[in-house]
């Protein structure tokens, strides 16, 4: 290895930092300084306690001026931490900041070694490398990029909403993208918020409405981010609008479509009953290939379908599938004269709307009157021809007794329209969750195929669930909503669309998802009735929810005792090691609300109560005073005690009460699990699209845990809220506001200076082989056929160096990372 002869006018200054004791306790800083002083080209070498301090920086500036230094090396921490600091000092003293190099002797040396002698040796090698590299560095000029003032916000929960409002308030455009049909996020599910017990809706919905009214917030609900390209100030984003089937520009939110829709979306696991027997089972779609329906009770088949002969030979004998395949022609009735099925259906719905609940209740005897509404809707509106009346005998007055039957096992599409119009409940819909162990649909929205996610949804535009919609499932049936929609907002031909937007900065506020407690079989969620997750309980508490805010067991009873089990999936080596931070407080809120709304006893099973926020400890004391039992011990398991075939039992929560040192077994009626907060299931996909890093727990990684919690390693991309880590509402809002401030600061500057670390092609040496074109991950290199050379588009180039390494002609140079510089650095380490 040859020692390079330093250029004669080379004057390098080397500054070695002690970093308090961070470096100096493992590395002999003084000896490193003395070593540096002897390196070729070094004019001065100094050490100091804190190089990043004012005094340290001033020393660098003074030496540049007084000793006419033309290169600077600082041996200290990671460049991620303080490279900008020292580059700034160089610039202040008039030295081009790219003539500065940093040697990381803290994170990559002092902190990871114990042996002082070896660590010192390594620090010297790192300094030597930096000195040799800086000697061949060249001055570069940063280039200016204009900032597009528009901002993209991904995720419209409370964080996204808050940030959007802040930025819009300052007068700048925002694209607020939300993948759900409505904005509001998780907070929209809550009834009360801790510790003040503010009504969640009262503080959230005004903000949601405000978002929809601001002309410079462009709301994009039911959209996904498809791809992102570009760099700070100049991003191009492709957004995918999913089919909504309702035109938001025409829809007035009147709700006529919802009140007339005959098809059921919920419960998603349902059975349609005919005279108490299961006619059709509807299960949620698996693999997105449409709802799975099953009709299986052959005794419900129409007598003609069963025997192929007249109704008088009606029998309940089970017949084979072949026999069932009778000609459907047989059931085709001559069309009735008079109003169309649509007109008759609408008349029926409006007549029902005028009835009182009491009147409706009186009619619901469960006995068939032979009215024929079910066959009429199934034939005329749905078009499935799945139900047909048959005469099963004569009544006392000699009149025919008619009852509905299935025409075939395949005909029913499970829409539930027949049950919707049946006045007596002979045809009915039953929630399969009412079977043992079934998990109920806890949702705030209406149960029709066309639905609003919840009554305060923004935008207040319904959406059609294509898997439940009769029209979309039968290709042409029903269409009631289209008929009743005066503004003609229903569009069954709606298809997804791609929109391309130009924006300058991006805020990611995609929130969290709830840990699925079915992964912890010991708690029995999904197996035991009345073991429910925290978010489901929030919905139950919500006055818009399935129980109207009443706390009820699955069978409708009020619980006598409720257990709240903390840390389900959090602080658990088998699942998530971290603390989810919000559970203790919402568990206390639950306890208060259970006490408030029922006379049940409440037992909290906790590891530690973490009531760390403003007013939190006071809230804890208040809940204790209300007589809530708190038991220090993680809930070990939930066991159901039953006797014989009894359908419902008592739940027992077992735990080791660590305060009294005994195993306890508390009987309750309901168990609420405090599920962990975890990263969104597709956080990795978004991270890949945006070039974000994630911490080991899967949440998006901030640039610095303390000093830049909303920034990311990608300039111009920020994170806020629970996508960065579990967080309560105040912290989420604070982060959203912080991110908005950062975004506005950049917008107000109008332009940013970018590192000129980019690739460039030397056209004299380029052979036009085009290897680099395909390798470039950012599609930044294009080929010009006429001159037979490739060219790098520096606005797209990220300076990754792939092309530099791959070019067989050595024609591509990476500014700031030339082959010469890299080789000099390697030599410095190896000699």
């Amino acid at each position, binding site marked *: 290895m040859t020692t390079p002869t330093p250029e004669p006018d080379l004057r390098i200054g080397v500054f070695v930092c002690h970093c308090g004791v961070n470096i100096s306790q493992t590395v002999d800083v003084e000896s490193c300084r003395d070593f540096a002083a002897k390196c070729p080209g070094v004019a001065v070498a100094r050490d100091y306690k804190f190089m990043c301090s004012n005094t340290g920086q001033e020393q660098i500036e003074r030496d540049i001026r007084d000793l006419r230094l033309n290169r600077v090396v600082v041996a200290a921490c990671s460049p991620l931490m303080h490279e900008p600091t020292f580059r700034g000092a160089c610039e202040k003293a008039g030295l081009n900041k790219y003539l500065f190099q940093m040697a990381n002797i803290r994170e990559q040396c002092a902190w990871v070694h114990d042996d002082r002698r070896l660590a010192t040796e390594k620090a010297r090698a790192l300094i030597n490398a930096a000195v040799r590299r800086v000697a061949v560095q060249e001055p570069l000029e940063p280039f200016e990029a204009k900032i597009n003032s528009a901002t993209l916000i991904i995720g419209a929960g409370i964080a996204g909403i808050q940030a959007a409002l802040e930025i819009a308030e300052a007068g700048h455009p925002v694209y607020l993208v939300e993948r759900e049909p409505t904005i509001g996020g998780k907070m929209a599910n809550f009834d009360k918020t801790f510790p003040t017990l503010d009504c969640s809706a009262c503080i959230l919905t005004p903000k949601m409405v405000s978002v929809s009214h601001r002309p410079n917030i462009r709301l994009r609900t039911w959209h996904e981010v498809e791809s992102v390209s570009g760099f700070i100030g100049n991003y191009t984003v492709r957004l995918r609008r999913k089919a909504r089937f309702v035109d938001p520009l025409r829809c007035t939110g009147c709700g006529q479509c919802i009140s007339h829709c005959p098809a059921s979306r919920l419960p998603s696991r349902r059975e349609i009953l005919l005279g108490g027997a299961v006619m059709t089972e509807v299960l949620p779609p698996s693999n997105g290939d449409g709802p799975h329906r099953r009709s299986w009770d052959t005794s419900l088949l129409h007598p003609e379908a069963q025997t192929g002969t007249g109704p008088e030979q009606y029998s309940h004998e089970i017949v084979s599938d072949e026999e069932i395949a009778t000609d459907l022609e047989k059931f085709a009735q001559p069309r009735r004269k008079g109003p169309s099925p649509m007109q008759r259906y609408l008349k029926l719905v409006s007549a029902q709307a005028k009835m009182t609940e009491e009147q409706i209740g009186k009619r619901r005897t469960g006995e068939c009157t032979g009215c024929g509404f079910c066959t009429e809707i199934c034939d005329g509106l749905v078009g499935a021809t799945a139900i047909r009346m048959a005469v099963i005998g004569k009544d006392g007055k000699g009149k025919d007794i008619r009852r509905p039957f299935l025409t075939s096992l395949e005909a029913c599409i499970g829409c539930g329209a027949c049950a919707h119009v049946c006045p007596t409940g002979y045809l009915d819909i039953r929630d399969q969750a009412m079977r043992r162990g079934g998990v109920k649909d806890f949702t705030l929205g209406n149960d029709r195929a066309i639905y609003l996610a919840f009554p305060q949804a923004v935008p207040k535009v319904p959406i059609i669930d294509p898997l439940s919609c009769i029209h979309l499932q039968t290709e042409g049936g029903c269409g009631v909503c289209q008929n009743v929609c005066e503004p003609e907002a229903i569009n069954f031909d709606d298809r997804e669309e791609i929109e391309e937007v130009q924006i300058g900065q991006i805020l990611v506020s995609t929130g969290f998802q709830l840990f699925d407690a079915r992964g912890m079989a010991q708690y029995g969620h999904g197996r035991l009735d009345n073991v429910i997750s925290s978010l489901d309980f929030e919905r139950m508490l919500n006055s818009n929810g399935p129980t109207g805010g009443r706390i009820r067991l699955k069978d409708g009873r009020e619980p006598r005792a409720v257990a709240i089990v903390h840390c389900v999936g959090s602080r658990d080596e088998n699942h998530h090691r971290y603390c989810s931070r919000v559970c203790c407080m919402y568990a206390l809120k639950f306890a208060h609300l259970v006490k408030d709304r029922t006379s049940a006893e409440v037992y909290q099973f906790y590891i530690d109560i973490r009531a760390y926020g403003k007013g939190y400890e006071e809230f804890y004391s208040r809940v204790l005073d209300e007589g809530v039992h708190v038991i220090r011990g993680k809930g070990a398991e939930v066991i*159901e*005690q039953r006797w*014989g075939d009894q359908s419902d039992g008592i739940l027992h929560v077992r735990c080791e009460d660590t305060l009294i040192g005994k195993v306890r077994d508390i009987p309750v009626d309901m168990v609420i699990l405090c599920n962990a907060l975890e990263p969104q299931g597709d956080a990795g996909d978004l991270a890949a699209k945006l070039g974000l890093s994630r911490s080991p727990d899967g949440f998006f990684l901030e640039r610095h845990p303390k000093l830049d919690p909303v920034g990311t390693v990608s300039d111009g991309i920020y994170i806020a809220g629970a996508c960065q880590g579990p967080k309560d509402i105040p912290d989420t809002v604070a982060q959203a506001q912080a991110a908005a401030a950062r975004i506005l600061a950049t917008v107000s500057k109008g332009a940013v200076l970018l590192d000129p670390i980019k690739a460039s092609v030397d056209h004299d040496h380029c052979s036009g082989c085009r290897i680099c074109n395909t390798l470039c991950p950012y599609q930044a290199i294009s080929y010009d056929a006429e001159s037979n050379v490739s060219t790098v588009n520096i606005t797209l180039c990220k300076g990754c160096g792939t092309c530099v390494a791959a070019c067989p002609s050595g024609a591509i140079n990476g500014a700031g990372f030339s082959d010469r510089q890299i080789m000099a650095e390697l030599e410095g380490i190896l000699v």
Partner: protein
Amino acid sequence: MAAPTTDYAYFPGCSLESTGIAYDKSLRAVFRALGLGLHEIDDWNCCGATAYMSVKETVSFAISARNLALAERQGPRDIVAPCSACFLVLAKTRRFLQERPALREKVDEALAAAELSCECRARIRHPLEVLVNDVGIAQLRAAAKRSLRGHRFACYYGCQMVRPERYFEPDREFPMAMDDLFRALGAATVDYPLKVRCCGGMQMVTNEPVGLDLTQGLLDCAVSLGATAIVTTCPMCQFNLELYQDKITARAGRDLHLPVLFFTQPLGLALGCDPAALGFEHQVVPVPGDSLTLAEAGS
């Protein structure tokens, strides 16, 4: 009977020659009925035993590893260990030898002294898992000659098979393999919430009141759910649950007598084995005689 498609090495362990002899008889009968080979390891010794492992760890690993080495010498077959304790110790030994080179070195040295060596290739399997996965519930159902209709089992898995080695993931805390098996064979199973709770283990010998408390809970739950028998996968569980029923009935003040079977016994009945070959004569709490004469499958 089809020719044996799969061969297994068989490690009975001490229990299956003494208190759990019914397990040995019924297991052999079931494997024979299904045409599965079961080759007892020649000159096998103690599995290493759970308690010994905490006293002299390295020695106990060496003792345990001798069985693996002997099995390997007989041929490359998975080792079937019906006793949950043996299963656990052998599986743990195999895993530790694979993961810890320092331990492996010492154990290899000990084995070499006996002119043995061990590659640790053969997997340690519990017969329940072998039957459910290698044969399959559908196949077992197809092979059944008689229906278990009328029986109402509490399926009890105990802890050692399911928990430490995570054998039945993801259902480690609530396994369903045996429940699914017996339901497929026509029996009813009660939703037995204590299916993996401790049977009392060795506490029954060293600290009887604690052992009795634990066993009483299991019996009480099964009786109150209306089970006709508890079905187990482990000789120690079976022993603890069956032998102390008089004592437990006395201290509980109510009748907690219930037959406790090995899962291979009712399975053998369903597969059409001769009831006399399934070891029912060894039951302390007798099985009602009429329940041994079962209806033909499908009737």
